């Protein structure tokens, strides 16, 4: 086949990466288009296209221009795709209306202009490319506004600077790399639809926060505030500045009666000082801190939990003034019950392959499997597991965070764009060493609008391969009944496809471990 590539430059147009990725993935799905990409023509982005083979040589384009690069099977398809891309891009430009034509009624071009229009604004949500995000956040703080930084790639030096400045001004920095928060009942970023209630959450982890609020919602409880602090907040260099601020605020908040604190592996020193602060609190606090092995401080108002599920259940019972006993025993019973439904693994595989779109789930899994399964490999660093030198190739039990920059370069996050995970799913399924594939589905605002439709066709394809008996597929959905994707139909579509559905990540991981132990 004669493949051809072509490019087009649209001058003086800026689009955020999510809009561009949406257009790119739409182009990708066109018949006769092999691959396609729309980018802001920064040197780094141009390099990505060169690496992807979408550009044959350097191209003269400026960072304030959009570059469309397409590889297609023939010239007509190429030109059609280029036209379509240009139309889409320009359409967005015209719906947003031309900068020149704008009068006072249209979108502002800066935070200050926005503040002129709405003087009561109190939070700036920032999702610009990382290197610009710190600057936008500093502007917000200087204008006296709280800020949530969704963007990643903010340096730790900038994070320290921002958080120290905010602390002085009694303002809050949520993030950076804060995927989700719920403030005053309003979901920000990738957030689930949850009922209002009396449980407040401070989380240095995006999916960790989502999982806990979903389980609280499922258990009939509600959320007062859910504060994302960014994954590095409990790093010793940051010292938990945002977490401490959040805890203090929740302690004062009259709507909140229980506080949950979640983090990816934290610094033990920071945890110590955190616990000291929490001891003084008048409200009970539930901790879930992966990989930290903190000892129970044996203080009346502090509860240490091992999993997100346990944290949610403990918080739920505390919120209704009861204490759930024998959580561990109940978990065990449920797993045994589920095991009854597990079909016999029909192939000769021996290993677990977990493909996560939520990074915290990967930490939680590594922490749960530690001591249960030998030889854990992952693309994230975790005590007693091997950091993979080549995350593109699984070895032994492999647990992947597919939201890692390494996998997402030039693509949207795997909660939105399923292509990376689907490819990996196919690979793992055709690997005879794979016994169990485990995956998460995350619902909520801004996630994929119909995830089961994105993954079920791949599962069907895997099952139809008669030469290679398919591995066991265990999945779980992190979402609520209120989420826009329709939890019920997502569940039933996955079940119909033969996926064994667990209630949450901890349950899915324990089940997978039992299946493998029993092989």
């Amino acid at each position, binding site marked *: 086949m004669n493949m051809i590539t072509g490019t087009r430059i649209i001058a003086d147009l800026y689009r*955020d*990466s*999510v*809009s561009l990725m949406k257009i790119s993935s739409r182009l990708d799905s066109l018949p006769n288009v092999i691959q396609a990409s729309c980018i802001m023509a920064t040197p780094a982005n141009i390099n990505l296209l060169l690496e992807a083979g979408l550009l044959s040589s350097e191209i003269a384009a*400026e960072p*304030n221009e959009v570059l469309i690069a397409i590889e297609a099977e023939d010239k007509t398809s190429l030109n059609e795709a280029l036209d379509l891309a240009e139309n889409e891009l320009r359409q967005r430009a015209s719906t947003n209306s031309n*900068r*020149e034509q*704008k*009068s*006072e009624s*249209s*979108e502002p*071009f*800066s*935070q*200050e*202009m*926005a*503040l002129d*229009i*709405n003087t*009561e*604004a*109190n*939070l*700036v*949500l*920032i*999702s*610009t490319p990382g*290197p*610009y995000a*710190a*600057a*936008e956040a*500093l*502007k917000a703080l*200087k*204008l*006296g506004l709280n800020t949530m930084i*969704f963007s990643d790639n903010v340096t730790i030096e900038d994070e320290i600077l921002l958080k120290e400045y905010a602390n002085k001004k*009694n*303002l809050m920095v949520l993030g950076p790399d804060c995927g989700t928060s719920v*403030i*005053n*009942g*309003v*979901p*920000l*970023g990738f*957030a689930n639809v949850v009922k209002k209630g009396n449980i407040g959450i401070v989380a240095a982890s995006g999916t960790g926060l989502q999982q806990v609020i979903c389980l609280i919602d499922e258990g009939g409880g509600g959320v007062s505030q859910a504060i994302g602090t960014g994954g590095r907040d409990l790093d010793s260099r940051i010292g938990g500045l945002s977490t401490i*601020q*959040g805890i203090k*605020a929740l302690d*004062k*908040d009259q*709507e909140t009666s229980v506080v949950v604190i979640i983090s990816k592996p934290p610094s033990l020193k920071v945890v110590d000082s955190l616990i000291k602060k929490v001891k003084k609190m008048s409200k009970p606090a539930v901790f879930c801190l992966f990989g930290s092995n903190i000892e129970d401080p044996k203080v009346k108002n502090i509860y240490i939990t091992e999993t997100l599920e346990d944290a949610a259940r403990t918080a739920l019972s505390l919120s209704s003034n009861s204490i759930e006993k024998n959580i561990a025993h109940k978990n065990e019973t449920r797993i045994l019950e589920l095991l009854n439904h597990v079909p016999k693994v029909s192939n000769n595989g021996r290993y677990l392959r977990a493909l996560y779109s939520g990074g915290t789930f990967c930490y939680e899994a590594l922490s749960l499997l530690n001591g249960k399964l030998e030889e854990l490999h992952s693309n994230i660093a975790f005590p007693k597991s091997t950091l993979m030198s080549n995350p593109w190739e699984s070895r032994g039990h492999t647990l992947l965070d597919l939201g890692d920059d390494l996998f997402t370069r030039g693509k949207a996050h795997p909660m939105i764009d399923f292509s990376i995970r689907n490819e990996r799913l196919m690979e793992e399924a055709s690997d005879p060493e794979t016994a169990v594939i485990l995956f998460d589905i995350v619902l909520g*605002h*801004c996630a994929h609008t119909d995830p089961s439709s994105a993954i079920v066709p791949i599962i069907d394809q895997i099952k139809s391969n008669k030469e290679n008996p398919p591995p066991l597929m265990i999945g779980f959905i992190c979402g609520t009944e209120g989420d826009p994707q329709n939890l019920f139909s997502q569940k039933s579509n996955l079940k119909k496809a033969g996926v064994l559905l667990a209630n949450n990540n901890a349950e899915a991981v324990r089940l997978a471990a039992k299946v493998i132990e029993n092989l």
Partner: protein
Amino acid sequence: MTNLFNSKLSVINVGVSDFAEPIISYNAKVINVDWKPPGNDEKVARALSLLVNSPEVEEANHKSFQRYLDSQPTLVGVKPASKVIECMNEKTIMHSGPPITWEKMCSPMKGAIIGACIFEEWEKDHKSAEKALESGAINLVPCHHNGAVGPMAGIISPSMPVWIVDDPIHNSTYFCNLNEGLGKVLRFGANDSEVINRLHWMKEILGPALGKSLEKLEPLKLKPLMAQALHMGDEVHNRNVAASGLLLKRFTAAALDADIKSTIISELVDFISNNDHFFLNLSMSACKAMMDAAHGVPGSSIVTAMARNGTDFGIRVSGLGDNWYKSPAPVINGLFFPGYDSTDANPDLGDSSITETAGVGAFAMAASPAIVQFVGGSAADSIKNTKLMSHITHGHNDAFTIPQMDFSATPACIDVRKVVDTSIMPIINTGIAHRKAGIGQIGAGITKAPADCFSQAVIALAKTFSE
């Protein structure tokens, strides 16, 4: 944070516009910012963030702006440049825009300087003039460095008569040459005998006659005259019909009062009434007076000059001393006279953008719908342009009001921070010169200041705080 919990959430969304949707569905307020990377450069964005809402900058700008408002440019006389401008005692020629060497000058500016050498009788022909200029025997300095401004090539040589404009509030004096009219003129690089003869007439007849007439007038405050012209359809940059008429009215009576021969009065009235741009040079000196008043406040981010020499576009900023921040001069988007197109156009030229810097010209475009026709726009566009500019200025100048906008004040004093933060570039109304010397004006239109010089200024200003 606790305050946040106790109040209604109201969000400014910067970046992914989709994030606004869930917020809206919860009936919370959200405004999407149509964001562009400031200056397309992380370092610029960083420098900008240090300056936004900084108390030091706000205070400096307030002071700078107040000095701009306070200034009271007043026409006091006309004299030969050598008598009133210090640097004009030697073989020195002043030009428009930021500093530039002879080699790098555009052709219209070179032609005009050669013409000035011949007019001053320093050289007898083009060839010898060029040689002298190449050898560096003649000093070339920017008008802006000597309290002066000049349209297009902006050439002022020692024996040319200049307007003298005092600012009694700040005890300073400003200058501009006299306008030669349209067609084949020195400021577009023409330098044949017709041009030189006119310059001699201006030196020997027009200048002294204006000077004498002025002695019969009370010092003439220029801001009220400009304000009146704005109410009569001028924006006092590219349209000066009304202001020139108002000026002529004053001069005719004064000239009749003064001891001037009636044939000369007749020549004077004839010359001024045939030049719709006669007032431009006074408008420019008034604007220069206002902006120099605002200049030199440490920490201030207010632009005090935008000027072009046909090669570079440069700006000066109140808190950044005598430095210029330069970008290549842009080509103008406009209407061309029959027989010419954009390939004939010289890049933007002249000090006349001092008018936009001072809050008139394109910033007062709503006062002058006739100007928008240059780019095929409508009267509504002229209002839009003026409103757009108010997003990048420190404030408004009550001295200049716009009837079409319910007599609201014109946006004034460009803030480099706002330009970089919003990516809204200052608009400039301007004439278009032919790229070859001597052909003259070939069109007129609207251009935007280039972004890069504002980014450089933001970086430089941020540095003054870190040092």
